[in-house]
């Protein structure tokens, strides 16, 4: 036996037994697996009948939060519009009425606040950017509409989303309920 031959490790095919060559045990084994799956729990999600349980940080449709007085919390700082990678937020700022005690806590407020929900990629960066916790993403995932115009959410619509969702345990207002955040404290 040469040196080269000694180095070779021979791996033979396993020898088949009579049980294997008859096929029947293998077929029975396979049928056992198949039948056991008939009685296994289903993995189908029956969606419209059974709503999915979403994780608490699920990012769905936006809402604009209200403060204690019922005004929109947003101070029109444009941080969310700047942070948005999809350019779906358009804000027009207006000076807050100075004499009105309702608006005493801020300089500006959004005259219009429009989010194009079709453009949005639901990354949640607007929520992260907001200094006064005015914009939040809710757990509404089944957003539908019959036209593109319908899917462009203006301020009223976004506040309406707040009114609809803030009471539900699924979408609690996450931070600083009622008052504005730290960024507004200099004005006070």
């Amino acid at each position, binding site marked *: 036996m040469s040196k080269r031959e000694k180095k070779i490790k021979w791996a033979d095919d396993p*020898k*088949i037994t*009579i049980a294997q*060559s008859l096929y029947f045990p293998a077929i029975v084994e396979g049928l056992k697996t198949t039948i056991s*799956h008939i009685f296994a729990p289903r993995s*189908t999600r029956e969606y419209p009948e059974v709503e999915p349980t979403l994780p608490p940080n699920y990012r769905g449709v936006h809402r604009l939060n209200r403060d204690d007085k019922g005004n929109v919390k947003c101070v029109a700082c444009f941080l969310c519009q700047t942070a948005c990678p999809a350019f779906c937020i358009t804000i027009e700022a207006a000076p807050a009425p100075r004499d009105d005690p309702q608006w005493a806590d801020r300089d500006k407020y959004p005259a219009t606040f429009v989010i194009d929900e079709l453009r949005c990629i639901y990354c949640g960066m607007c929520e992260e950017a907001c200094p006064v916790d005015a914009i939040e993403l809710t757990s509404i995932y089944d957003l539908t509409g019959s036209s593109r115009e319908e899917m462009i959410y203006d301020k009223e619509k976004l506040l309406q989303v707040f009114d609809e969702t803030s009471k539900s345990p699924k979408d609690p207002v996450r931070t600083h309920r009622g008052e504005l955040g730290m960024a507004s404290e200099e004005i006070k």
Partner: protein
Amino acid sequence: MTWMNTWPSLLAIIIVIAVMPIAALYMTFLERKIAAWVQDRVGPNRVGPAGAFQAIADAVKIMLKEQVIPDHVNRGVYFVAPAISVFTATFALCVVPFGPVPLNSGDGVRYIIAPHIDTGLMFLFSIASLSAYGIILGGWASNNKYSLYGAVRSCAQFLSYEIPLGLSVLGVVATSGTLNIETIVHHQSSGWFGWNIWWQPLGAILFFVSALAETNRLPFDLPECEQELVGGFHTEYSGIKFVMFFLAENIHVVTVSILTVLLFFGGWHFPGLESQSEWGFIGFLLRFFVVYAKVMAVIFFIMLLRWTLPRFRFDQLMGLAWKGMIPLGLLNFFGVVLAMSFGWPLWTLAVVSTTLVFAAGWINVGRARSAVARRAQMAHDVVIGVGN
């Protein structure tokens, strides 16, 4: 023949024509449900309670589908092929009792179109083998290389498995002494051990396997193999014509299941229901229930097999028929002939069957081992060099 003698046959014809397509339709539903259950899914459940009307919705959808006829097809044959498939599948049911049939043909309702045909099995097999025409003509008329390949493949499979199919029932025919299906069933009326499965286990297995191959069911669905091929013979078919091929296939599955039950599992006989005098209404219903419980079990088994066994390679398919099942069928028949001519008791047939199965197993082990040794020697020669 008077009118009074013909009405049961007319009734049976109406039942076959009306019920068979619906049964075949519902088999697609059952198939989808079982597929879903095996894969831990729920399956179709939108149309009607638990999806029960899905099959009807499918049928309506298919009826209303546009008929797309490619320009390059041979139009006449193209239209005839699916019709031949359905016609042969339905025509074969002519001699198959699809419910209990009293031995005395005068007794009321009988679930067979042509009762007491003495060449029943022969007729059945000759008609059923005509269904190869539907497939080969479909492939030919499509005027498409892949369809023709599919058709040729399928035809080769049909021809190969006709032989073990015929050989497998010869044992039953010899022990019962008749080709008449009702008489064969009648011969199995003596309780559990009257059933042919005990005396012809090998025949039953061969029959079932080659019948699966004849119906193009998995693991023998080489003509179609949904996942691997360009459709096979029905590539150029769509809409109702496409479905007619599958209708034929499903009718074949029903026929085969009924035949398996009738030939090997005692038909409408069950221990405790043997006496022929019980042809009252209750007895009749019970027998009806018995035969359909058995048929459903076989259909269920066929569908489970689909999700259990992988598909054959084409050479394996041919090897199984020519090197395995045909010799086994011949030897089994030889055993039956010996037992019949020397008057050996029935249990010797079971011994013969079992011996044959194990002998085949041993031969297979030897073949596989020598193949392994040959491959090892070849590898050795390549690596070391011959004569080194």
